């Protein structure tokens, strides 16, 4: 039995910068691979995340409405999970595809549509680690007499 689902996929902005149609194909191809019939798929938004995911501050949100047989869903979700370009996904069961979504998706498929370039500040800056540990440079004088260390008694063993 097939059911209509709403799937939101968060994609890495690096993939969108290279080619936004290729980024969209990640969603559409995965749906098609698992026997789903896509009703609409569009770029919902590009925005700053409330918290970082995979060291990224921003992501492009794709929203898809599709049918899919119930037994194919675990494989579909696993494919999204394994894809490195997908930061996160959410799949929700819905009654039907909204009419607005169909119109907006049809507009996006038009030739004139172009996606604005995502901002550059999506990567979290990680401070470079110091090459040498400052604590390791301190010379601590250790004076152990040679005789004492050589003739140190072995600890007594019990049992």
């Amino acid at each position, binding site marked *: 039995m097939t059911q209509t689902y709403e799937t939101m996929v968060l994609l890495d902005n690096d993939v969108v910068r290279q080619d936004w149609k290729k980024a969209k194909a990640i969603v559409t191809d995965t749906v098609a691979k698992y026997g789903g019939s896509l009703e609409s798929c569009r770029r919902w938004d590009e925005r700053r*995340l*409330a918290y970082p995911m995979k060291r990224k501050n921003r992501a492009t949100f794709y929203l898809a409405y599709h049918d899919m047989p119930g037994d194919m869903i675990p494989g579909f979700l696993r494919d999204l999970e394994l894809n490195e370009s997908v930061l996160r996904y*959410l799949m929700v069961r819905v009654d039907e595809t909204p009419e607005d979504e169909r119109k907006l998706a049809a507009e996006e498929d038009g030739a004139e549509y172009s996606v604005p370039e995502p901002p550059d500040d999506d990567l979290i800056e990680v401070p470079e680690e110091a090459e040498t540990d400052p604590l390791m440079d301190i010379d601590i004088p250790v004076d152990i007499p040679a005789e004492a260390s050589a003739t140190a008694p072995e600890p007594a063993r019990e049992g």
Partner: protein
Amino acid sequence: MKRRVKTMIGSKNCDDPIIDYKSTEYLEKFLTPQGQILSRRRSGFCTQCQKQLKSAIKRARHVGLLPFVG
């Protein structure tokens, strides 16, 4: 002792449009500054709508539209 009742965000919230996890501006009204979900007493929702609100906020948190804390 007289019990002090906190003001509701709105008493007729159940008449609002359908609660959806994508409408983050609307959902933010039902979060405290720390990011916690308001109780039914403060949000003014009925039981069913409060459940919808809860799941919508949790979905929005999952996809990074709303924060878990702050």
